[in-house]
Protein backbone atom coordinates (compact mmCIF):
# COMPACT_ATOMS: atom_id res chain seq x y z
CA UNK A 1 0.00 0.00 0.00
CA UNK A 2 1.49 3.27 -1.04
CA UNK A 3 1.54 6.08 1.48
CA UNK A 4 0.64 9.44 -0.04
CA UNK A 5 1.73 12.33 2.13
CA UNK A 6 -0.58 15.28 1.71
CA UNK A 7 0.40 18.96 1.81
CA UNK A 8 -1.48 19.23 5.10
CA UNK A 9 0.51 16.37 6.66
CA UNK A 10 3.88 17.74 5.63
CA UNK A 11 2.81 21.18 6.87
CA UNK A 12 1.81 19.64 10.21
CA UNK A 13 5.08 17.69 10.49
CA UNK A 14 6.93 20.93 9.77
CA UNK A 15 5.18 22.52 12.74
CA UNK A 16 6.04 19.57 15.02
CA UNK A 17 9.64 19.43 13.82
CA UNK A 18 10.06 23.24 13.84
CA UNK A 19 11.38 23.16 10.29
CA UNK A 20 10.52 25.49 7.44
CA UNK A 21 10.72 23.91 3.99
CA UNK A 22 10.66 25.72 0.67
CA UNK A 23 8.50 24.44 -2.20
CA UNK A 24 11.04 22.05 -3.64
CA UNK A 25 12.16 20.71 -0.25
CA UNK A 26 8.51 20.12 0.63
CA UNK A 27 7.90 18.02 -2.49
CA UNK A 28 11.06 16.00 -1.80
CA UNK A 29 10.06 15.51 1.84
CA UNK A 30 6.60 14.23 0.80
CA UNK A 31 8.20 11.74 -1.57
CA UNK A 32 10.90 10.61 0.91
CA UNK A 33 8.50 10.20 3.79
CA UNK A 34 5.97 8.31 1.65
CA UNK A 35 8.67 5.90 0.51
CA UNK A 36 10.02 5.40 4.01
CA UNK A 37 6.54 4.69 5.38
CA UNK A 38 5.89 2.19 2.55
CA UNK A 39 9.09 0.47 3.62
CA UNK A 40 8.26 0.63 7.33
CA UNK A 41 4.81 -0.86 6.62
CA UNK A 42 6.62 -4.21 6.23
CA UNK A 43 6.38 -4.40 10.01
CA UNK A 44 2.64 -5.02 9.61
CA UNK A 45 3.48 -8.50 8.30
CA UNK A 46 4.53 -9.35 11.86
CA UNK A 47 1.98 -10.46 14.42
CA UNK A 48 2.93 -8.49 17.51
CA UNK A 49 -0.32 -8.95 19.42
CA UNK A 50 0.43 -9.64 23.06
CA UNK A 51 4.02 -8.40 22.72
CA UNK A 52 4.94 -5.63 25.15
CA UNK A 53 6.71 -2.65 23.54
CA UNK A 54 10.39 -2.72 24.62
CA UNK A 55 11.89 0.72 25.05
CA UNK A 56 15.04 -0.40 26.86
CA UNK A 57 16.81 -3.73 26.67
CA UNK A 58 17.74 -3.65 30.36
CA UNK A 59 15.43 -2.58 33.15
CA UNK A 60 15.89 1.17 33.57
CA UNK A 61 15.27 2.64 36.98
CA UNK A 62 15.37 6.15 38.32
CA UNK A 63 18.80 6.96 39.69
CA UNK A 64 18.60 8.99 42.88
CA UNK A 65 21.32 10.90 44.66
CA UNK A 66 21.57 13.42 47.47
CA UNK A 67 21.02 16.99 46.34
CA UNK A 68 24.61 18.03 46.89
CA UNK A 69 26.72 20.19 44.64
CA UNK A 70 29.70 18.20 43.42
CA UNK A 71 30.84 20.12 40.37
CA UNK A 72 31.71 23.44 41.97
CA UNK A 73 31.10 26.88 40.61
CA UNK A 74 31.07 26.60 36.83
CA UNK A 75 29.69 30.07 36.25
CA UNK A 76 32.54 31.51 34.24
CA UNK A 77 32.94 28.41 32.10
CA UNK A 78 29.22 28.34 31.39
CA UNK A 79 29.12 32.01 30.51
CA UNK A 80 31.88 31.49 27.97
CA UNK A 81 29.29 29.72 25.89
CA UNK A 82 26.82 32.61 25.93
CA UNK A 83 26.10 34.10 22.50
CA UNK A 84 26.20 37.47 24.23
CA UNK A 85 26.88 38.26 27.86
CA UNK A 86 25.67 40.95 30.20
CA UNK A 87 27.42 40.76 33.54
CA UNK A 88 26.56 37.29 34.86
CA UNK A 89 23.71 36.61 32.44
CA UNK A 90 23.18 35.17 28.98
CA UNK A 91 21.68 37.66 26.54
CA UNK A 92 19.25 35.85 24.22
CA UNK A 93 16.19 36.78 22.15
CA UNK A 94 12.97 37.01 24.12
CA UNK A 95 11.53 33.48 24.46
CA UNK A 96 8.43 34.12 26.56
Amino acid at each position, binding site marked *: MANIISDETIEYVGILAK*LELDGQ*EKEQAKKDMGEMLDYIDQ*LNELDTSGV*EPMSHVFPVNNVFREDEVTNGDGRDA*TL*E*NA*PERKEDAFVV*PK*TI
Partner: protein
Amino acid sequence: MSLMSLTAVALGKKIKAGEVSVTEAVQAALDAAAAKEEKVNGFVTVDGERALERAEKVQEGIRKGVYDSPLAGVPVAVKDNMCTRGLLTTCSSKILGNFVPTYTAEAVANLERAGAVVMGKTNMDEFAMGSTTETSAYGATRNPWNGEHVPGGSSGGSCAAVAAEECSYALGSDTGGSIRQPSSFCGVTGLKPTYGTVSRYGLIAYGSSLDQIGPVAKDVTDCATILEAIASHDAKDSTSVERKDYDFAAALSEDVRGMKIGIPRDYLGEGLDGEVRDSIMAAAKVLEEKGALVEEFDLSLVEYAIPAYYVIACAEASSNLARFDGVKYGYRTTDYEGLHNMYKKSRSEGFGPEAKRRIMLGSFVLSSGYYDAYYLKALRTKALIKQAFDKAFSQYDLILGPAAPTTAPRLGESLSDPIKMYLGDIYTVSVNLAGLPGISLPCGLDSKGLPIGLQLIGDCFQEKKIIRAAYAFEQTREYQHSPLA
Protein backbone atom coordinates in the same frame (compact mmCIF):
# COMPACT_ATOMS: atom_id res chain seq x y z
CA MET B 1 59.57 2.42 10.99
CA SER B 2 57.16 5.29 11.47
CA LEU B 3 55.70 5.74 14.93
CA MET B 4 52.30 5.99 13.28
CA SER B 5 52.45 2.45 11.93
CA LEU B 6 52.58 1.09 15.49
CA THR B 7 49.52 -0.03 17.36
CA ALA B 8 48.45 2.17 20.28
CA VAL B 9 49.67 -0.41 22.80
CA ALA B 10 53.04 -0.80 21.03
CA LEU B 11 53.53 2.98 20.97
CA GLY B 12 52.48 3.19 24.62
CA LYS B 13 55.17 0.63 25.50
CA LYS B 14 57.87 2.67 23.75
CA ILE B 15 56.72 5.79 25.59
CA LYS B 16 56.73 3.97 28.91
CA ALA B 17 60.22 2.62 28.21
CA GLY B 18 61.44 6.14 27.45
CA GLU B 19 62.36 5.22 23.86
CA VAL B 20 59.90 7.77 22.50
CA SER B 21 58.77 10.97 24.18
CA VAL B 22 55.11 11.91 24.32
CA THR B 23 55.91 15.04 22.33
CA GLU B 24 57.56 12.95 19.61
CA ALA B 25 54.53 10.67 19.43
CA VAL B 26 52.06 13.55 19.28
CA GLN B 27 54.18 15.46 16.77
CA ALA B 28 54.30 12.37 14.55
CA ALA B 29 50.51 12.23 14.54
CA LEU B 30 50.19 15.97 13.86
CA ASP B 31 52.69 15.72 10.98
CA ALA B 32 50.84 12.73 9.52
CA ALA B 33 47.53 14.60 9.71
CA ALA B 34 49.07 17.71 8.14
CA ALA B 35 50.41 15.63 5.26
CA LYS B 36 47.34 13.49 4.62
CA GLU B 37 44.27 15.52 5.52
CA GLU B 38 44.02 16.99 2.05
CA LYS B 39 43.39 13.49 0.76
CA VAL B 40 41.40 12.06 3.69
CA ASN B 41 39.48 14.88 5.41
CA GLY B 42 39.10 12.65 8.43
CA PHE B 43 39.18 15.56 10.88
CA VAL B 44 36.90 18.51 11.51
CA THR B 45 39.44 19.98 13.95
CA VAL B 46 43.11 19.28 14.63
CA ASP B 47 44.44 21.29 17.57
CA GLY B 48 48.20 20.89 17.52
CA GLU B 49 48.98 23.57 20.05
CA ARG B 50 46.63 22.11 22.63
CA ALA B 51 47.91 18.58 21.97
CA LEU B 52 51.58 19.56 22.32
CA GLU B 53 50.90 21.41 25.57
CA ARG B 54 49.07 18.40 26.88
CA ALA B 55 51.93 16.13 25.72
CA GLU B 56 54.35 17.90 28.02
CA LYS B 57 52.01 17.55 30.98
CA VAL B 58 51.48 13.86 30.27
CA GLN B 59 55.23 13.29 29.96
CA GLU B 60 55.66 14.88 33.37
CA GLY B 61 52.81 12.72 34.72
CA ILE B 62 54.42 9.56 33.38
CA ARG B 63 57.70 10.53 35.00
CA LYS B 64 55.96 11.08 38.33
CA GLY B 65 54.00 7.84 38.04
CA VAL B 66 50.58 9.55 37.78
CA TYR B 67 49.92 7.82 34.46
CA ASP B 68 50.77 4.14 34.17
CA SER B 69 48.11 3.05 31.67
CA PRO B 70 49.28 1.28 28.48
CA LEU B 71 47.75 4.23 26.59
CA ALA B 72 49.58 7.01 28.46
CA GLY B 73 50.98 9.53 26.01
CA VAL B 74 49.41 7.94 22.94
CA PRO B 75 47.64 10.40 20.57
CA VAL B 76 43.93 9.77 20.04
CA ALA B 77 41.32 11.27 17.71
CA VAL B 78 37.80 11.68 19.07
CA LYS B 79 34.61 11.64 17.01
CA ASP B 80 33.14 15.11 16.84
CA ASN B 81 29.96 14.17 18.70
CA MET B 82 31.77 13.82 22.04
CA CYS B 83 32.11 16.99 24.07
CA THR B 84 35.66 18.13 24.75
CA ARG B 85 36.13 21.07 27.08
CA GLY B 86 37.55 24.07 25.24
CA LEU B 87 37.70 22.21 21.91
CA LEU B 88 35.19 22.82 19.12
CA THR B 89 32.54 20.05 18.95
CA THR B 90 30.38 20.34 15.83
CA CYS B 91 28.72 16.94 15.31
CA SER B 92 29.69 17.77 11.70
CA SER B 93 26.70 20.11 11.62
CA LYS B 94 26.42 23.78 10.78
CA ILE B 95 24.06 24.18 13.74
CA LEU B 96 26.92 23.43 16.16
CA GLY B 97 29.54 25.15 14.02
CA ASN B 98 30.57 27.45 16.88
CA PHE B 99 29.98 25.13 19.84
CA VAL B 100 32.85 24.93 22.31
CA PRO B 101 31.77 22.69 25.22
CA THR B 102 32.41 23.66 28.82
CA TYR B 103 32.78 20.05 29.90
CA THR B 104 34.25 16.78 28.64
CA ALA B 105 32.40 13.56 27.82
CA GLU B 106 33.01 10.87 30.46
CA ALA B 107 34.54 8.42 27.97
CA VAL B 108 37.08 11.06 26.88
CA ALA B 109 37.70 12.10 30.50
CA ASN B 110 38.41 8.45 31.33
CA LEU B 111 40.97 8.34 28.52
CA GLU B 112 42.55 11.55 29.75
CA ARG B 113 42.79 10.07 33.24
CA ALA B 114 44.76 7.28 31.57
CA GLY B 115 47.11 9.88 30.07
CA ALA B 116 45.77 9.99 26.51
CA VAL B 117 46.45 13.06 24.36
CA VAL B 118 43.46 14.22 22.30
CA MET B 119 44.85 15.62 19.03
CA GLY B 120 41.58 16.53 17.35
CA LYS B 121 38.01 15.75 16.46
CA THR B 122 37.00 13.47 13.62
CA ASN B 123 34.53 13.97 10.82
CA MET B 124 31.24 12.09 10.83
CA ASP B 125 27.84 12.04 9.22
CA GLU B 126 25.91 15.02 10.57
CA PHE B 127 24.63 14.03 14.03
CA ALA B 128 25.78 10.47 13.20
CA MET B 129 22.97 10.16 10.66
CA GLY B 130 24.32 8.35 7.65
CA SER B 131 26.43 5.44 6.49
CA THR B 132 29.03 7.23 4.36
CA THR B 133 30.33 10.37 6.17
CA GLU B 134 29.04 12.33 3.17
CA THR B 135 26.31 14.14 5.14
CA SER B 136 28.93 16.12 7.11
CA ALA B 137 28.61 19.89 6.78
CA TYR B 138 32.42 19.97 6.56
CA GLY B 139 32.88 17.87 3.44
CA ALA B 140 33.01 14.11 2.89
CA THR B 141 35.78 11.95 4.32
CA ARG B 142 37.53 9.74 1.77
CA ASN B 143 38.51 6.12 2.11
CA PRO B 144 42.30 5.75 2.61
CA TRP B 145 42.23 2.57 0.52
CA ASN B 146 40.77 4.40 -2.47
CA GLY B 147 39.86 8.09 -2.43
CA GLU B 148 37.01 7.54 -4.89
CA HIS B 149 35.21 5.48 -2.26
CA VAL B 150 33.47 6.41 0.99
CA PRO B 151 34.95 5.41 4.37
CA GLY B 152 31.51 4.32 5.62
CA GLY B 153 29.78 6.05 8.48
CA SER B 154 28.88 7.57 10.63
CA SER B 155 32.29 7.24 12.39
CA GLY B 156 33.98 7.49 8.97
CA GLY B 157 36.45 10.16 10.08
CA SER B 158 37.64 8.07 13.06
CA CYS B 159 38.06 4.92 10.95
CA ALA B 160 39.73 6.73 8.03
CA ALA B 161 42.11 8.56 10.38
CA VAL B 162 43.15 5.24 11.96
CA ALA B 163 43.56 3.54 8.55
CA ALA B 164 45.54 6.49 7.14
CA GLU B 165 47.66 6.45 10.33
CA GLU B 166 46.95 10.07 11.22
CA CYS B 167 46.29 9.00 14.83
CA SER B 168 47.21 5.92 16.85
CA TYR B 169 43.58 5.09 17.61
CA ALA B 170 40.20 6.80 17.78
CA LEU B 171 36.87 6.83 19.54
CA GLY B 172 33.70 6.34 17.55
CA SER B 173 30.05 5.91 18.40
CA ASP B 174 27.67 3.25 17.15
CA THR B 175 23.89 3.73 16.97
CA GLY B 176 23.11 1.35 14.08
CA GLY B 177 26.54 0.17 12.97
CA SER B 178 28.44 3.46 12.94
CA ILE B 179 31.64 1.93 14.36
CA ARG B 180 31.49 -1.52 12.78
CA GLN B 181 30.52 -0.63 9.20
CA PRO B 182 33.19 2.08 8.65
CA SER B 183 35.76 -0.14 10.39
CA SER B 184 34.89 -2.79 7.83
CA PHE B 185 35.17 -0.32 4.91
CA CYS B 186 38.50 1.10 6.14
CA GLY B 187 40.18 -2.18 7.12
CA VAL B 188 40.49 -1.41 10.83
CA THR B 189 39.08 -2.97 14.01
CA GLY B 190 36.11 -1.37 15.76
CA LEU B 191 34.20 -2.56 18.80
CA LYS B 192 30.70 -1.61 19.87
CA PRO B 193 30.27 -2.53 23.55
CA THR B 194 27.12 -3.74 25.29
CA TYR B 195 24.69 -0.84 25.78
CA GLY B 196 25.48 0.97 29.02
CA THR B 197 29.12 -0.17 29.26
CA VAL B 198 30.60 3.20 28.26
CA SER B 199 28.98 6.33 29.70
CA ARG B 200 27.01 8.47 27.25
CA TYR B 201 27.56 11.58 29.40
CA GLY B 202 28.77 14.25 26.99
CA LEU B 203 27.96 12.22 23.87
CA ILE B 204 25.62 14.39 21.80
CA ALA B 205 22.59 12.14 21.57
CA TYR B 206 21.15 10.74 18.35
CA GLY B 207 19.16 7.65 19.41
CA SER B 208 19.65 7.50 23.18
CA SER B 209 18.45 3.91 23.64
CA LEU B 210 20.89 2.72 20.95
CA ASP B 211 23.97 4.99 21.16
CA GLN B 212 27.19 3.52 22.49
CA ILE B 213 30.79 4.78 22.36
CA GLY B 214 33.57 2.38 21.41
CA PRO B 215 37.18 2.07 20.20
CA VAL B 216 38.52 2.09 16.64
CA ALA B 217 42.09 0.81 16.27
CA LYS B 218 44.53 -1.31 14.30
CA ASP B 219 43.93 -4.52 16.21
CA VAL B 220 41.96 -6.41 18.82
CA THR B 221 44.56 -5.88 21.56
CA ASP B 222 44.21 -2.11 21.15
CA CYS B 223 40.41 -2.33 21.18
CA ALA B 224 40.35 -4.41 24.38
CA THR B 225 42.84 -2.07 26.06
CA ILE B 226 40.96 1.09 25.01
CA LEU B 227 37.63 -0.38 26.09
CA GLU B 228 39.14 -1.14 29.48
CA ALA B 229 40.12 2.53 29.77
CA ILE B 230 36.83 4.09 28.64
CA ALA B 231 34.29 1.76 30.26
CA SER B 232 32.96 2.82 33.65
CA HIS B 233 29.84 2.97 35.72
CA ASP B 234 28.85 6.64 35.66
CA ALA B 235 26.21 8.18 37.91
CA LYS B 236 25.86 11.01 35.37
CA ASP B 237 24.33 8.60 32.82
CA SER B 238 21.18 6.96 34.15
CA THR B 239 21.49 4.13 31.62
CA SER B 240 25.07 3.35 32.64
CA VAL B 241 25.43 -0.24 33.80
CA GLU B 242 27.62 -1.41 36.67
CA ARG B 243 29.46 -4.41 35.29
CA LYS B 244 31.23 -7.19 37.10
CA ASP B 245 34.14 -7.24 34.68
CA TYR B 246 36.14 -4.38 33.22
CA ASP B 247 39.36 -6.33 32.58
CA PHE B 248 38.74 -6.82 28.86
CA ALA B 249 42.42 -7.19 27.95
CA ALA B 250 42.50 -10.35 30.11
CA ALA B 251 40.46 -12.03 27.36
CA LEU B 252 43.23 -11.70 24.76
CA SER B 253 43.72 -15.43 24.28
CA GLU B 254 43.88 -17.59 21.17
CA ASP B 255 41.94 -20.41 22.72
CA VAL B 256 38.62 -20.88 20.95
CA ARG B 257 38.43 -24.65 21.42
CA GLY B 258 34.85 -25.72 22.03
CA MET B 259 33.46 -22.25 21.40
CA LYS B 260 30.11 -22.49 19.59
CA ILE B 261 29.72 -20.04 16.72
CA GLY B 262 26.53 -19.66 14.70
CA ILE B 263 26.29 -18.11 11.23
CA PRO B 264 22.78 -16.85 10.48
CA ARG B 265 21.65 -18.22 7.12
CA ASP B 266 19.57 -15.04 6.87
CA TYR B 267 22.86 -13.07 6.66
CA LEU B 268 24.10 -14.98 3.65
CA GLY B 269 21.21 -14.52 1.23
CA GLU B 270 20.14 -11.93 -1.28
CA GLY B 271 22.03 -8.64 -1.30
CA LEU B 272 25.31 -10.06 0.03
CA ASP B 273 28.24 -9.55 -2.32
CA GLY B 274 29.84 -12.84 -3.39
CA GLU B 275 33.40 -11.82 -2.53
CA VAL B 276 32.32 -10.63 0.94
CA ARG B 277 30.51 -13.94 1.46
CA ASP B 278 33.56 -15.99 0.46
CA SER B 279 35.84 -13.98 2.74
CA ILE B 280 33.48 -14.36 5.72
CA MET B 281 33.10 -18.09 5.17
CA ALA B 282 36.89 -18.45 4.92
CA ALA B 283 37.22 -16.63 8.26
CA ALA B 284 34.66 -19.01 9.80
CA LYS B 285 36.75 -21.92 8.51
CA VAL B 286 39.83 -20.49 10.23
CA LEU B 287 38.03 -20.37 13.57
CA GLU B 288 36.77 -23.90 12.98
CA GLU B 289 40.32 -25.10 12.36
CA LYS B 290 41.31 -23.51 15.64
CA GLY B 291 38.78 -25.65 17.44
CA ALA B 292 35.54 -23.67 17.39
CA LEU B 293 32.30 -25.42 16.48
CA VAL B 294 30.79 -23.49 13.59
CA GLU B 295 27.37 -24.06 12.08
CA GLU B 296 24.66 -22.21 10.19
CA PHE B 297 21.29 -21.48 11.74
CA ASP B 298 18.15 -19.41 11.17
CA LEU B 299 18.12 -16.23 13.23
CA SER B 300 14.81 -14.93 11.77
CA LEU B 301 13.32 -11.40 11.66
CA VAL B 302 16.48 -9.97 10.07
CA GLU B 303 14.58 -8.00 7.41
CA TYR B 304 12.44 -6.28 10.06
CA ALA B 305 15.37 -4.82 11.96
CA ILE B 306 15.95 -1.93 9.54
CA PRO B 307 12.38 -0.57 9.48
CA ALA B 308 12.12 -0.97 13.28
CA TYR B 309 15.48 0.74 13.73
CA TYR B 310 14.62 3.73 11.55
CA VAL B 311 11.33 4.31 13.37
CA ILE B 312 12.97 4.14 16.81
CA ALA B 313 16.16 6.03 15.95
CA CYS B 314 14.29 8.81 14.11
CA ALA B 315 11.73 9.12 16.91
CA GLU B 316 14.49 9.54 19.48
CA ALA B 317 16.42 11.88 17.16
CA SER B 318 13.42 14.15 16.66
CA SER B 319 13.19 14.53 20.41
CA ASN B 320 16.95 14.79 21.06
CA LEU B 321 17.50 17.37 18.33
CA ALA B 322 14.62 19.56 19.53
CA ARG B 323 17.13 21.25 21.87
CA PHE B 324 18.89 22.96 18.95
CA ASP B 325 16.77 26.07 18.76
CA GLY B 326 19.32 28.83 18.21
CA VAL B 327 18.68 30.46 21.59
CA LYS B 328 21.51 29.80 24.05
CA TYR B 329 24.18 28.18 21.87
CA GLY B 330 24.77 27.01 18.34
CA TYR B 331 23.72 28.59 15.07
CA ARG B 332 21.11 31.36 15.06
CA THR B 333 19.63 32.83 11.89
CA THR B 334 20.32 36.51 11.30
CA ASP B 335 16.93 37.78 10.15
CA TYR B 336 13.72 36.69 11.80
CA GLU B 337 10.35 37.90 12.90
CA GLY B 338 9.34 36.63 16.30
CA LEU B 339 10.31 33.57 18.31
CA HIS B 340 8.80 30.74 16.24
CA ASN B 341 10.18 32.15 13.02
CA MET B 342 13.61 32.27 14.66
CA TYR B 343 13.37 28.64 15.78
CA LYS B 344 12.25 27.47 12.36
CA LYS B 345 14.76 29.48 10.38
CA SER B 346 17.70 28.63 12.66
CA ARG B 347 16.90 24.92 12.44
CA SER B 348 16.14 24.92 8.72
CA GLU B 349 19.39 26.72 7.92
CA GLY B 350 21.42 24.82 10.53
CA PHE B 351 20.47 21.19 9.78
CA GLY B 352 21.41 19.37 6.58
CA PRO B 353 18.99 17.30 4.44
CA GLU B 354 19.52 13.90 6.13
CA ALA B 355 19.06 15.33 9.64
CA LYS B 356 15.87 17.08 8.49
CA ARG B 357 14.59 13.91 6.85
CA ARG B 358 15.06 11.95 10.07
CA ILE B 359 13.66 14.67 12.34
CA MET B 360 10.52 14.84 10.20
CA LEU B 361 10.04 11.07 10.05
CA GLY B 362 10.56 10.90 13.80
CA SER B 363 8.10 13.71 14.47
CA PHE B 364 5.56 11.94 12.28
CA VAL B 365 5.83 8.49 13.90
CA LEU B 366 5.46 10.04 17.34
CA SER B 367 2.51 12.22 16.39
CA SER B 368 -0.97 11.64 17.67
CA GLY B 369 -2.76 9.05 15.53
CA TYR B 370 0.45 7.39 14.30
CA TYR B 371 2.23 6.66 17.59
CA ASP B 372 0.68 3.22 18.07
CA ALA B 373 0.87 2.19 14.42
CA TYR B 374 4.52 3.11 13.96
CA TYR B 375 6.39 3.80 17.19
CA LEU B 376 4.85 1.16 19.43
CA LYS B 377 4.84 -1.33 16.56
CA ALA B 378 8.59 -0.79 16.20
CA LEU B 379 9.14 -1.25 19.95
CA ARG B 380 7.15 -4.52 19.80
CA THR B 381 9.28 -5.64 16.86
CA LYS B 382 12.36 -4.80 18.89
CA ALA B 383 11.12 -7.10 21.67
CA LEU B 384 10.74 -9.94 19.13
CA ILE B 385 14.22 -9.29 17.72
CA LYS B 386 15.65 -9.44 21.24
CA GLN B 387 13.87 -12.76 21.79
CA ALA B 388 15.37 -14.12 18.55
CA PHE B 389 18.86 -13.21 19.78
CA ASP B 390 18.16 -14.70 23.23
CA LYS B 391 17.24 -17.94 21.53
CA ALA B 392 20.36 -17.84 19.38
CA PHE B 393 22.60 -17.21 22.38
CA SER B 394 21.04 -20.11 24.25
CA GLN B 395 22.74 -22.26 21.59
CA TYR B 396 25.82 -20.28 20.56
CA ASP B 397 28.58 -18.30 22.24
CA LEU B 398 28.94 -15.98 19.26
CA ILE B 399 27.24 -15.04 16.02
CA LEU B 400 29.50 -14.60 13.00
CA GLY B 401 28.71 -12.73 9.81
CA PRO B 402 29.66 -9.83 7.59
CA ALA B 403 29.64 -6.26 8.94
CA ALA B 404 28.17 -4.94 5.69
CA PRO B 405 26.75 -6.54 2.53
CA THR B 406 29.37 -4.96 0.26
CA THR B 407 32.72 -3.22 0.45
CA ALA B 408 32.82 0.60 0.41
CA PRO B 409 30.62 2.15 -2.30
CA ARG B 410 31.86 5.00 -4.48
CA LEU B 411 31.40 8.57 -3.27
CA GLY B 412 28.03 10.00 -4.28
CA GLU B 413 26.43 6.60 -4.95
CA SER B 414 24.44 6.27 -1.74
CA LEU B 415 22.80 9.59 -0.92
CA SER B 416 20.48 9.68 -3.95
CA ASP B 417 18.55 6.66 -2.68
CA PRO B 418 18.16 6.78 1.13
CA ILE B 419 16.39 3.43 1.42
CA LYS B 420 19.17 1.69 -0.49
CA MET B 421 21.68 3.30 1.87
CA TYR B 422 19.65 2.17 4.89
CA LEU B 423 19.63 -1.43 3.56
CA GLY B 424 23.43 -1.44 3.96
CA ASP B 425 22.83 -1.47 7.73
CA ILE B 426 21.14 -4.87 7.66
CA TYR B 427 23.82 -6.79 9.60
CA THR B 428 24.50 -4.11 12.18
CA VAL B 429 21.27 -2.43 13.34
CA SER B 430 19.72 -5.41 15.09
CA VAL B 431 22.75 -5.54 17.39
CA ASN B 432 21.93 -2.02 18.61
CA LEU B 433 18.23 -2.83 18.98
CA ALA B 434 19.13 -5.76 21.25
CA GLY B 435 21.89 -3.82 23.10
CA LEU B 436 24.52 -6.43 22.16
CA PRO B 437 28.28 -6.05 21.76
CA GLY B 438 29.83 -6.53 18.33
CA ILE B 439 33.20 -6.17 16.64
CA SER B 440 34.29 -5.72 13.05
CA LEU B 441 37.81 -6.72 12.09
CA PRO B 442 39.56 -7.01 8.74
CA CYS B 443 39.36 -10.42 7.06
CA GLY B 444 40.49 -9.72 3.50
CA LEU B 445 40.34 -7.50 0.46
CA ASP B 446 38.02 -7.75 -2.53
CA SER B 447 39.18 -7.72 -6.17
CA LYS B 448 39.01 -3.90 -6.14
CA GLY B 449 41.49 -3.86 -3.27
CA LEU B 450 38.88 -2.69 -0.73
CA PRO B 451 38.76 -4.16 2.81
CA ILE B 452 36.15 -6.66 3.98
CA GLY B 453 35.07 -6.78 7.62
CA LEU B 454 34.20 -9.81 9.72
CA GLN B 455 31.57 -9.15 12.38
CA LEU B 456 31.37 -11.13 15.61
CA ILE B 457 28.35 -10.55 17.85
CA GLY B 458 28.09 -11.64 21.46
CA ASP B 459 25.32 -11.83 24.02
CA CYS B 460 25.00 -8.87 26.39
CA PHE B 461 28.14 -8.46 28.57
CA GLN B 462 30.03 -11.13 26.60
CA GLU B 463 32.69 -8.80 25.15
CA LYS B 464 35.36 -11.20 26.37
CA LYS B 465 34.11 -13.99 24.12
CA ILE B 466 34.16 -11.60 21.17
CA ILE B 467 37.67 -10.43 22.03
CA ARG B 468 38.92 -14.00 22.38
CA ALA B 469 37.57 -15.18 19.02
CA ALA B 470 38.57 -11.97 17.23
CA TYR B 471 42.07 -12.19 18.69
CA ALA B 472 42.38 -15.85 17.69
CA PHE B 473 41.37 -15.05 14.12
CA GLU B 474 43.64 -12.02 13.97
CA GLN B 475 46.70 -14.09 14.92
CA THR B 476 46.36 -15.98 11.64
CA ARG B 477 46.94 -12.93 9.48
CA GLU B 478 49.11 -9.83 9.11
CA TYR B 479 47.66 -6.35 9.58
CA GLN B 480 47.40 -4.73 6.16
CA HIS B 481 48.26 -1.05 6.16
CA SER B 482 46.22 1.12 3.78
CA PRO B 483 48.02 2.70 0.81
CA LEU B 484 47.78 6.08 2.56
CA ALA B 485 49.39 4.79 5.74
